[in-house]
């Protein structure tokens, strides 16, 4: 059928790698791990004003099985860290992680015994966002950083 009709006489060539990376980087579905006030800004990021659909990230998936990037938004206690790690382990590869805000990145103002001082203590974080809480633009910036990262990595050869 129709490839002829769509493309007419023309054709284009590409590598499988860049096709995969193009597809992956423009459909990063976030897993919202909203733990505190950062989650409100994360919701604004998905809303119409900031329009995450421009980056293919508007589909917030509440199932780890269907998502590509986990946005840890808020401060994380030692008790919660086990649940977060469990959700993270259920996400299929390839997957990425964003530490949103000062608390998720470093512990922030919660400098106390019950709060993990940065979720990178138990998660491989790809992008950190500063701010308390960060503006939705910063989340878009982090999504764009993840897109750049996806475009740079050797997707097919390393994901075997």
């Amino acid at each position, binding site marked *: 059928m129709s490839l002829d009709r769509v493309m007419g006489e023309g054709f284009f060539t590409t590598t499988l790698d860049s096709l995969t990376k193009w597809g992956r980087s423009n459909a990063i579905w976030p897993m919202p791990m909203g733990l505190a006030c950062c989650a409100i800004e994360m919701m604004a990021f998905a809303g119409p004003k900031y329009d995450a659909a421009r980056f293919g990230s508007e589909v917030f998936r509440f199932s780890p099985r269907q998502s590509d990037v986990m946005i840890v938004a808020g401060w994380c206690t*030692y008790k919660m*860290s086990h649940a*977060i790690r*469990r959700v993270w382990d259920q996400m299929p590869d390839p997957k990425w992680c964003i530490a949103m805000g000062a608390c998720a990145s470093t512990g922030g103002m919660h400098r*106390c*015994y019950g709060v993990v001082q940065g979720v990178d203590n138990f998660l491989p974080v790809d992008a950190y966002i500063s701010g308390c809480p960060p503006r939705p633009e910063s989340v878009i910036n982090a999504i764009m950083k993840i897109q750049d990262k996806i475009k740079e990595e050797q997707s097919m050869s390393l994901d075997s």
Partner: protein
Amino acid sequence: MNSDTKQALLQKIRDKLGDDLHEVYEEYQYPLLRINRERLHETCRFMKEELHFIYLNDVLGTDRFTSVDRFEVIYHMISLRDQQRFFLKVFVDEEDPVLPTVTDLWTSANWNEREVYDMFGIRFKGHPDLRRIFLPEDFKYFPLRKEFPLLGVPGSLELPSSTPDHD
């Protein structure tokens, strides 16, 4: 809030306790009474049954970090009938941090006393279920004591394994 009612209630407590009422702070809107810890349970019963303080709002602890009478435990109770709010305070020594429970009077004291036990290690004699309420049961420290380091003891709380289960 009627201050005549407050004074009448205070007078009843003074008559009841006599010298065991050590201090009365009235600078604030609500009176705070420091009493002898030996008469704590008796006073609580008196407050509930005679003075109609049927609502125990909170039980909280404080670490004063002094060599004698190190801890204090404050009982915050409310009389809905008289619209009064009273605080009872007792000192607890570090050597023997034991107080009688008031769960037999107010059931709401159950979790509050467990929290004070969790944070300060003050035990409540007669409590039906004195376990830690926030921290893991094998946690060895009492975090709101002043000598506990701000960032905790490294390794005392477990982080998840960073190796996934499936491979």
